[in-house]
């Protein structure tokens, strides 16, 4: 195995690097594989090619073909064999090539991954991670731009997280791999290689807990809640609103199941107004769940109904229409205006 290419304590180089979200994931995976020889990476094209998005670039070269598996092309096979490997004591990290291709593996995820621990009354753990590049905005053909996270948040036994930035990407993937429960890990593919999303990642820092939301921008007029690619939309909206004299608080959920809503409740009790932003269709979704819980916990604090800015309740449209489908700054600000005018 070749020497790993990350910074070590005492090394001459700084432990702080400027990384894209994709590169941060790559280094996070590398760190996890170095820390635990039972960690495997498996999926379609993840070896020599480094994945279609290059997130696993160089891992097979350094860790070998038995730790970075170019699998046959079948998603149920990827997930189903990962279950067996986990039962054997490995910690598989599966890559699903695109969000819309996870459904052949849905049966294994819901029937085996999610339920094996409960079925065995805790005797068998399934510590596997399923990485899913998700969301739109890349001008792709059908099945390459979807946001299926609510299906998995709905399923007991699974944990679901989504990173929105490079720092979280680096740490959250490692924490997900260390978790003894199965974790669906949703990555905002649109921002994998965006230079403007580069961030300073300190590989020696102490990370925040995995299953915790975070206030990314403080405010007092209204609260915006988002996750994954929608966090940037929410932050941009808050920046624009500032010019109109509106102070918007932005919360990045980070964990979608379990939901860490205490900071959201605290915020809504102060602002009285909540707008939830997500690319996924609204009906029976995570945004519905958040609205339900907030009305239950913050009933007397709400000055307006919880509003949602989401993808529509339609199949994901052809690429020339996707910018109209996806929540953007204007739609978020419109929702804020409606909330304030209530």
């Amino acid at each position, binding site marked *: 195995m070749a020497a790993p290419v990350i910074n070590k304590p005492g090394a001459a180089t700084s432990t702080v690097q400027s990384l894209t979200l994709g590169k941060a994931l790559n280094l996070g995976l590398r760190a996890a594989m170095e820390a635990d020889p039972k960690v495997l990476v498996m999926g379609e094209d993840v070896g020599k090619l480094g994945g279609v998005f290059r997130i696993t670039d160089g891992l097979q070269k350094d860790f070998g073909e038995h730790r970075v598996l170019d699998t046959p092309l079948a998603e149920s*096979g990827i997930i189903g064999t990962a279950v067996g490997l986990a039962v054997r004591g490995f910690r598989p990290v599966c890559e699903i090539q695109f969000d819309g291709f996870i459904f052949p593996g849905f049966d294994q995820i819901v029937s085996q991954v999610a339920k094996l621990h409960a*079925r065995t*009354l805790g005797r068998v753990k399934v510590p596997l991670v399923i990485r899913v590049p998700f969301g739109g905005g890349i001008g792709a053909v059908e099945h390459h731009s979807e946001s299926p996270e609510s299906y998995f948040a709905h399923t007991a036994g699974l944990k679901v997280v989504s990173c929105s930035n490079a720092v979280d990407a680096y740490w959250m993937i490692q924490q997900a791999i260390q978790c003894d429960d199965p974790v669906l890990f949703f990555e905002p593919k649109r921002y994998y290689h965006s230079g403007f999303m580069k961030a300073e990642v300190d590989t020696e820092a102490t990370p925040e807990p995995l299953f915790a939301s975070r206030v990314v921008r403080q405010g007092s007029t209204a609260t915006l809640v988002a996750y994954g690619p929608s966090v940037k939309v929410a932050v941009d909206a808050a920046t624009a609103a500032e010019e109109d004299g509106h102070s918007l608080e932005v919360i990045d959920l980070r964990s979608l199941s379990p939901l860490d809503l205490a900071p959201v409740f605290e915020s809504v009790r102060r602002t009285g107004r909540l707008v939830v932003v997500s690319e996924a269709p609204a009906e029976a979704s995570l945004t519905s769940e958040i609205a339900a819980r907030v009305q239950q916990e913050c009933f007397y604090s709400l000055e307006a109904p919880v509003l949602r800015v989401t993808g529509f309740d339609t199949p994901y449209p052809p690429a020339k229409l996707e910018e109209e489908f996806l929540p953007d700054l204007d739609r978020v600000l419109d929702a804020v205006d409606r909330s304030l005018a209530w």
Partner: protein
Amino acid sequence: MSSAEQWTHPEPREGPAATAAAPTAEQVIAGLRATSEGGPELVQLLTPEGERVENPEFDRYVADVTAEDLRSLYRDMVLVRRADREGNALQRQGQLGIWVPLLGQEAAQIGAGRALRATDMVFPSYREHGVAWCRDISPKDVLGIFRGTDHGSWDSQAKRFHPYTIVIGNQVLNAAGYAMGQRFEGRVGDDDGEATMVFFGDGATSQGDVHEGFVWAAVYDAPLVFFCQNNQWAISEPTERQSRLPLYQRARGYGFPGVRVDGNDVLASLAVSRWALDECRHGNGPVLIEAFTYRMDAHTTTDDPTRYRHSDELEAWKLKDPIERVRVNLVRHGDADQDFFDSVQAEADALAADLREFCFTMPQPPTEQIFNHVYAEASPYLDAQRDEFLAYHANFTGGEH
């Protein structure tokens, strides 16, 4: 409504769909033809009449089997059949929600189960009570699944017998992954190598997961024995609804050997399973075994086979009973006397009585079992949901719910 006579009069009928869907005479004949003979490729060491026949390829895998061993295999089969019949009776008496009978498949399961070593891993479907028995799992540990108190109470890691899998075919991929792990850990390649055996039925061979399991095991050279019990019926659908060609021949298309064994012949099942496991231990896996057998009872206690299969077929298979041929062989060679058969029967009856007593005294599972173990790590949200419900529940203590 579902007499066999109806099937010989396939005129279009009106009436309920279930009746209208009864097979035509042609289908019945095709089914009988397909299921009554295993074909020339069938590996058989004990004929239905109890005669030991030579097989140059597989004899050596049972050359060490003594008369005592054969008596032991007989005992296994009688005990698991008796426990199975008790399970069926307990369901009929309302003590179990459902029972999944193994009647007729004792030889396939005991032969395979006794070929396994303690270090091997097993992934069962949900009818493998006989294999469970061979893994030192009491029928009591299986009972909770069907009484509704748990999903199986054995320690699947310690016994190396995975929980029953009910979604058809899922376990085949899980087994392929486990076997890949055995190979990645270097536990394959010599006489002490490990292997995995996965059980599924003829119906499961149509599932994508089984085909994907074949692909995965093949390309990773996994030490995996695919043990397909072809019991001729997937609930109401005959094997001809699943495949044009004999199931064991599918292996060739995936690049590994397939063998059809007489699943009602415990000695042949033992021999072929030992051979297959041996191949896997030495790194020559995977291997497919098709155990050609017959589901003598219903799919489950909710099923009514008289709606879809001819009673003649059942009668024909009774003549190939897996237990009787061993009994005849033992008697013919003077390897067992009446005292032996009586003592096994007495042991079987005691096992059944004990199982019945256990069933009646199984406690109601605690309410918090609904919530516990959903996650390996702490789950404050679920804990709160549990506590809220338990507090609500406690309001009714001693009163009417």
